[in-house]
């Protein structure tokens, strides 16, 4: 009897663990008391979060005049962070939805934590437009609800409003997908819960899951439907984010290449973050058996592909700027970006996003955990600078030379960015303590009940 998924499964998961062993390995962090290093990490991320909370409270109380913005550069740090975090989320959806549609079995070990990462990243991202409103308590104005002002509807033609819909839909659908994917595992945790609190919480969340074959059939259909919906959704989200820029008339923003360029960049940066997190998590949680070198290798290949697409987009932007003969476009690319006062940011971006990932052509580097970790950090740095370069260098020298100026972030803005990292990593640290960070039922399906010693081909 041939069973290809099992054959591949045994190669993807090391050491042929039994079904019981899988539960034990994955839920070990949930059973034991947190280690000292976990508390140390939480102290660091919690402090960062506290700094960020203080900064956000201050800037909301005082007004966004505390930022380094001026009348020329009206968008800078805040929008950079927003686009950065939204992009980070995209890898999670790629892994959970697109790779599911493509039947890529290696996604199994990493999809749960990547999806969690998506949700935390979107939460981080959502903070920035909210603060940017200046009066976040009026945020509900962006929703088209019947009101006493006419009713005056929101501007459905504005890409900023498209963003509101895209990001909220993305957050909701990602949450549903993540939670639905977790229900069978929550039932496993419910059934092995040792104390009352756990029994109650997992019992509540597992919805009375009983593993019925009829439920499984519908469950798999639901997963497929959600994957099929999330795939165009994730592509639309960063396309719409890019339209915040592309539908304007600012040289450097007004380009048709933006939607695919942003989507590729988003997936690239997201894979950078997934690698950073999983390289740390797999060794901290002793899950090397499940998140193997092979998984890292595959992720590195996706980073190489998307990184190359980003590099191509950089080159194409320059080519079109030159080829269009448009002096404003040429000025943005050749004078403001490559050689202007922000050239250091531009070249940081080019080195991190176009040059560094090219090292991933080498198998030795893809399979070297330390090298991958460094590369993944550089990817994150590079992609943050990409957004900074796109936003600030296109604005700081506007059409009138008399309004040319420089933008520098203030302590408040940097503190807010640090705070968003704090929020992201705090959420992730809590997640790995209370929820199964690997989809146990999917690993079970991959490994199956066939043991190598049962005499059949595994």
């Amino acid at each position: 009897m041939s069973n290809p998924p099992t054959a591949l499964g045994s190669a993807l998961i090391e050491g042929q663990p039994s079904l019981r062993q899988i539960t034990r390995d994955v839920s070990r962090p949930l059973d034991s008391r947190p280690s000292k290093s976990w508390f140390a990490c939480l102290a660091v991320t919690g402090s960062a979060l506290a700094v960020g909370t203080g900064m956000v409270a201050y800037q909301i109380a005082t007004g966004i005049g505390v930022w380094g913005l001026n009348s020329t550069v009206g968008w800078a740090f805040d929008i950079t962070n927003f686009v950065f975090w939204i992009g980070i989320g995209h890898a999670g959806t790629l892994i959970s939805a697109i790779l599911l549609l493509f039947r890529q079995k290696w996604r199994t070990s990493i999809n749960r934590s990547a999806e969690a990462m998506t949700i935390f990243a979107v939460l981080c991202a959502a903070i920035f437009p909210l603060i940017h409103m200046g009066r976040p308590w009026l945020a509900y104005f962006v929703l088209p609800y019947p009101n006493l002002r006419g009713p005056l509807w929101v501007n459905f033609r504005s890409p900023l409003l498209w963003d509101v819909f895209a990001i909220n839909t993305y957050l909701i659908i990602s949450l549903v997908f993540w939670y639905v994917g977790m229900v069978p595992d929550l039932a496993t945790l419910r059934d092995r819960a040792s104390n009352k609190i756990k029994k109650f919480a997992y019992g509540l969340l597992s919805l009375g899951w009983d593993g019925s074959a009829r439920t499984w059939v519908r469950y798999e259909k639901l997963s497929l439907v959600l994957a099929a919906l999330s795939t165009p959704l994730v592509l639309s989200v960063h396309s719409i984010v890019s339209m915040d820029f592309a539908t304007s008339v600012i040289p450097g923003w007004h380009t048709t290449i933006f939607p695919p360029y942003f989507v590729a960049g988003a997936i690239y940066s997201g894979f950078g973050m997934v690698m950073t997190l999983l390289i740390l998590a797999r060794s901290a949680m002793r899950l090397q058996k499940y998140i193997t070198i092979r998984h890292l290798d595959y992720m590195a290949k996706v980073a190489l592909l998307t990184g190359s697409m980003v590099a191509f987009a950089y080159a194409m932007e320059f080519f079109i700027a030159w080829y269009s003969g448009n002096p404003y476009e040429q000025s943005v690319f050749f004078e403001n970006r490559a050689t202007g006062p922000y050239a250091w940011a531009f070249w940081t971006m080019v080195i991190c996003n176009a040059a560094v990932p090219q090292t991933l052509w080498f198998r030795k580097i893809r399979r070297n955990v330390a090298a991958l970790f460094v590369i993944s950090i550089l990817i994150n740095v590079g992609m943050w600078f990409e957004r900074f370069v796109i936003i600030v260098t296109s604005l700081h020298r506007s059409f009138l030379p008399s309004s040319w100026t420089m933008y520098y972030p203030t302590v408040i803005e940097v503190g807010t960015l640090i705070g968003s990292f704090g929020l992201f990593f705090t959420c992730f640290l809590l997640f790995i303590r209370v929820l199964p960070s690997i989809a146990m039922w999917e690993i079970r399906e991959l490994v199956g009940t066939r043991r190598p010693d049962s005499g059949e081909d595994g």
Partner: protein
Amino acid sequence: MRREFVLATFSEEEKLVEAVRQVRQSGCKVYDVFTPYPVHGLSEAMGLRQTRLAYVTLVFGLLGLALAMGFQFYAAVFDWPVDVGGKPANSTLAFVPITFEITILLGGLSTAGAFLLRTRLFPGLRPRLHEEGVTEDTFVVALLRQEGSNETDQARQILQDSGARQIRERTVQ
């Protein structure tokens, strides 16, 4: 209502699928099978119908599409038209992104909701027929005992012969 069940426990999916197939061939109905992960070939062995869940996605997705496009059209053309440089009020293309998002949102949420309704899952519910290990490494075949028929006993013998680890009877109120 008192219902008596025969519960057979398996530890290998291949034996389970084969046992279910034989039980059905013998003419006995399989009440349900509980597994720790989706076992491929099981729904065919049980003779389950294809789920119609995706139709819910289609219907509600189309509803979302119509609602979003209709509402934006109503707001921009009838309720509060804004003259922007003499451009037509009905700028359908600009309504596409929001229409797309609402289509996805309604399609996804309705499918998840329909799934919960159809599979009778709800926060805080306890599973009724629940055997130890069924969410971990145990596969359970459940047969509902029919009054005045020996079909269930025949099926029980089949389950026994096809490698069940344990068979027991259980009454559920």
